[in-house]
Structures are given as C-alpha cells and as structure tokens.
C-alpha cells in the first residue's frame, strides 16, 4: 500500500489533465486530419493537408491574431503597470478599496460591456456625432471597424488579468529595499530600474500568460468592434465550426493555435522558472 501511495497521489491530477486537457486535444487532433462533410459524415484519412491548406488560406488572420495579441498585451502592460504600482506603493491603508474600484467594471459581462462601447463609439453615435457636427472631426472619421478599436477592446477586456498579477508582485516588494537602493546612491529612477522592476517581472510574466493566449484566441472584440479588415483567427474558427460545419479545418486551425500557445507558454515558463511565475500567479 505504502509503495502505491505516490502513484495514487498522481492519479487525481493525471485524471484531471487527461479529461480536461488531453482528451479534448487528442480528439481535436483526430478531427483535424479527417475528411468529409456534415451530411455524409466525417472519416479519418490522416489528411494533413487540412493543416497546410487552412494555414495557407488564413495565414493573414493567423498573423494578425498574433499581432493583435502582442500589441494588446504590450499596451495592457503599459496601462496596468502604473495602475498596479500606484495602488501597491501609494494606496496606503485603502489598497483593497482601490483594487475593488479598478476591478469593479470587469464584473460586468464581457460582451455587454463591449456592445455598449460599440454603440457609444458608433460613427453617428453619441460621442462622434456631436464632434462631427461641430466640425472637430471630419465627417468620414470612424473608430469602429479599425485595428485601434479591436486592440482597444482586447486591452479593455483583459486589463484586470494584467493588473492583478502585477499588483500582487509589486505589493510583495519590500519598500525598504527601495530605500536601501536610494541610500546606496541610486536615484529614484535607478532604484526603480534596478530593484522594483526586476522584482515585479514575475508578475508581468504571469500577466502575459493570463492575457496573451485569450487575446490571441479572442473573437468577440473583432466580431463586435472590428470590420472585415480585422477578422481574427478566432472568428474564422468559430465560423467554420458553427456556420460552415467544416469541422476538420476548424480543428486544424484550433489545434495549430492551441499548440503554438502551449509551446509558447511552456518555453516561457521554462525560461523564467516555473516556480517564480506560478508563485506570482497564485498569490
């Protein structure tokens, strides 16, 4: 019995991964090489051309998604860092209240928020129409259906997942070590660069993990705020699955995306040391 214990301990975790990670992925991998259609059914033919074909066809959207994901992630860092910094170091006794204020908007459903922004920013909507009639903006100015709108939407929707881990990492930086750096002749900016920034990087990394993947796979923002020029790979996959019923192509695309993301995450976590990242993510 005692000898079996280690294996028994692995069992629940293994089952968990098997059911929630391995099974869907294996199934998706299997579908991705099938051929057929929804009327006649699908058959496994190990048709790897699904991959090459869809990738060739949707290369633009694929690269665009990664590009939007990267841009969104970088902008989110740029916005989240000062906010998290301010709360962690200047928030004083009210830290948690400030954090509540910052996170409050995000308790409201994702899609509802995004749709309401679509109306607010519509070409003849409440914001742009008066400005246009006043002549402040040209008549053909528009916000929606642009890259700016989609990336803005991504940032807006995933910002809290960047703020939280950065806040947690900053909150754990001992303010005395900053004082120590200043005592050792570092200017405020040097103390930030040499002490605060490196110590907060695990939080930034955790934030990247938590935002880059969903941003890249997102389809809601492109669907609502974007135009035909902003279609992301998530939209393609969704259309193929739900409207075209072209399951193999959709699976091939999904699988490629997912595999790329997982490889990226693992490489990233490995490079940083899993412990650091998770510690930052978990606390």
């Amino acid at each position: 019995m005692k000898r079996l214990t280690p294996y028994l301990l692995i069992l629940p975790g293994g089952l968990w991964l098997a059911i929630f990670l391995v099974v869907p992925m294996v199934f998706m991998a299997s579908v991705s090489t099938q051929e057929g259609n929804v009327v006649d059914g699908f058959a496994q033919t190990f048709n790897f051309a699904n991959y090459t074909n869809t990738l060739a066809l949707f290369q633009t959207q694929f690269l665009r998604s990664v590009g939007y994901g990267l841009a969104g992630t970088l902008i989110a860092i740029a916005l989240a860092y000062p906010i998290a910094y301010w709360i962690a170091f200047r928030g004083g006794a009210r830290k948690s209240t400030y954090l509540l204020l910052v996170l409050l908007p995000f308790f409201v459903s994702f899609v509802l928020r995004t749709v309401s922004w679509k109306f607010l920013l519509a070409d003849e909507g409440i914001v742009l129409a008066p400005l246009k009639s006043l002549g402040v903006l040209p008549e053909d100015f528009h916000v929606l259906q642009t890259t700016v709108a989609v990336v803005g939407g991504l940032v807006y929707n995933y910002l809290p997942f960047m703020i939280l881990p950065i806040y947690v990492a900053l909150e754990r930086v001992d303010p005395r070590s900053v004082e120590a750096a200043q005592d050792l002749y570092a200017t405020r900016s040097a103390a930030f660069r040499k002490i605060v920034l490196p110590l907060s990087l695990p939080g930034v990394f955790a934030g990247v993990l938590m935002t880059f993947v969903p941003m890249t796979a997102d389809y809601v923002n492109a669907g609502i705020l974007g135009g035909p020029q902003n279609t992301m790979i998530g939209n393609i996959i969704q259309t193929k699955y739900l409207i075209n019923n072209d399951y193999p192509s959709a699976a091939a695309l999904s699988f490629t995306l997912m595999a790329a993301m997982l490889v990226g995450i693992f490489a990233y976590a490995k490079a940083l040391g899993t412990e650091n990242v998770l510690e930052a993510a978990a606390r």
Partner: protein
Amino acid sequence: MTSAIDLDEVIKEYVSHGEVVQAVKGVSLSIAEGEFFSLLGPSGCGKTTTMRMIAGFEDPTRGKVRLHGQDVTNVPPNKRDVNMVFQSYALFPHMNVWDNVAFGLKQKKTPDAEIKRRVGEMLDIVDLTGREKRRPREMSGGQQQRVALARALVNNPRALLLDEPLGALDLKLRQAMQIELKRIQREVGITFVYVTHDQSEALTMSDRIAVMNDGLVEQLAGPREIYEQPASAFVAGFIGTSNLLAGTLAGGVLKVAGGRVLVPGGQDGEVNVTVRPEKITIDVDEPTQNVSAVPGTVAEVVYLGTYNSYAVRLSDGTEVTVFQQNANDATITAERGDAVWLSWQPQHSYAIGS
C-alpha cells in the same frame, strides 16, 4: 574639529487620521567623528525616525540636520555620504551577495577594478569570501546580517547608521555579532549611529548613549553615567533592573519599612530613591556601619547561573531585587522565608524626582 553629525532642534510631525502627531519633539545632538553612538529607547520613542532623518528618508518638519558641518536637511538620501544597515537587512533578493555589496559602488560609477578589489576586501572582513554567488534567501540570518553590513561599509561612508541590526538574530549570535560590530568599528574608524531598544546591547558597545522617550532625549551620556546616575525614573527603569523606594527625606535620611536609607546631598521632601540590585548586600544581622540598611523577608531566590536573584519583601510590601554573584559554591546566603537585612553604601542611593 567639526562633529560628524549634528541635529539642531529637529522636529518631525505626521498627520494621522487628521491629527498632527509629533514623532520627534525637538532633538539636538552632536555626534563626534569616529564615535559609537547609540539611540536607545522603547518602541515608538522616535529613535528610528531620528535616524531616518539623518539618512534622509524623512524630512524634518523643523530643525536642521548637518553632516560634517554641512547642512543636508533637504538633500536626498542618495546624495548623503552616510549608509544605513536596515532592521530586516533589506537585501536585494534578486541579486547575489557580490552584486548586493557592489551595488553602491556601481551606482557611484567606481571603476570595475576598484569595485572588484574593494568588494573582495569587504567580504573578507565580514568573513563571507567564497559565498559571493549565494542569494540572500539561501543564507542564515547571521550571514544576511553580515552582507547588509558589508553592503553599507564598502562605500567608506563618513557615518554608518544601524537600525536594530541584530534584532532578528538569536541570543548567542547576537552576542557574537556585538563583539564583531565593535571590532569592525574600531578597525574602520567610522562613526557608528546605532538604534536599539536593547539596553545591554547599548551598554556593551557604545561610547555614548542617548536615551529617548516619547520623542525627546531623556539623558545623553556614557554607559556608566547612564547606568549609575540615571537622570529620571524612566531611564532608571529602562536601563537594567532598578529598585525604587519612596518616602519623605529628612536630613539626608529616608525612613523606610523599619530601616533607613542614606541619601547624601538629597533635597528634603517627597522623593523616589533608586538603588541597583547589584549594589545591595544581603545579611542575616543588622549592619553596624554607617550604611543604608533595611530589614525584609526573602520572598524568592532564583538561581541564574552567573548570579542569584533575590526578591526581598519589606514590611510595607515593597519588593526589592538583589543580585549576588555566584562566585563560589556557598553563595546562597539566605533561603526563601528568611528574615534578612539589606544594606548598601550611601553613594549608591539616587534621589530622582517623583
């Protein structure tokens, strides 16, 4: 010769819940070049705030801070030629020992070769050679303490500020580090300003001690004077164990519980008289000489290795503590319940305001 550090009527006020609180209520000090100077007091007495104003982390509300005669009241910490050893060390957790110690020199753009030489020498002094690559969290408390010391000293500051640097260490290590600190101070010859709430630490190491209470300096003197001639009941109570006898002094004599306490030079009237436990002799017979002598009953004898501690209850209920060095096997001269006489030389009674 100008002194190393001058504080001139320094006041520090905070606003807390809408009320102004004075953490430091007007402190003036002159610390001499090369001196080992301690700020001693209970927590909340303002000693750490005072030190932080010397370092530049706090701006005085009023008053001036001078380093070597130069007014630095509004100079930021990175421009002050003093370094600090923090209470919890505040080592940089993401840097190894070498990078921690080299930090200040790098910030001052010291040439690489000189950094290499000076950091190497410093690690040698604090006995950490061979551990350059360790991270702070991989080291024991005592080692971290030495890294913190090296990180400050390597810059050859004109004064070193130490904020309860030994508080996190256990007893044996603390005692060893006290000796070590004193040795290093003698070797490098730098002014040390030492903040502590531990009176024995202050007595052991300091040239002079400022005893602080409630934002003010209650007494500033050498260890011996602080201990033997406390300026107030607070100092007497805070430094070591002290017996307090209260009564009316008439003609230099205080009548207490069937005995007499001689207080040479004391003003007649209501007084508190202090006497240290180690000055008192315990005996079964009434002393015949012209000394202070009070009868009582032994309430407790505690064996403490180096000495025995007696608690003697007087007839008026006062309890007097007596220390007796354990110099030979037969030192315990009285047992619990014995009636005894306590006596001490007249010069060991100190009258302080009540």
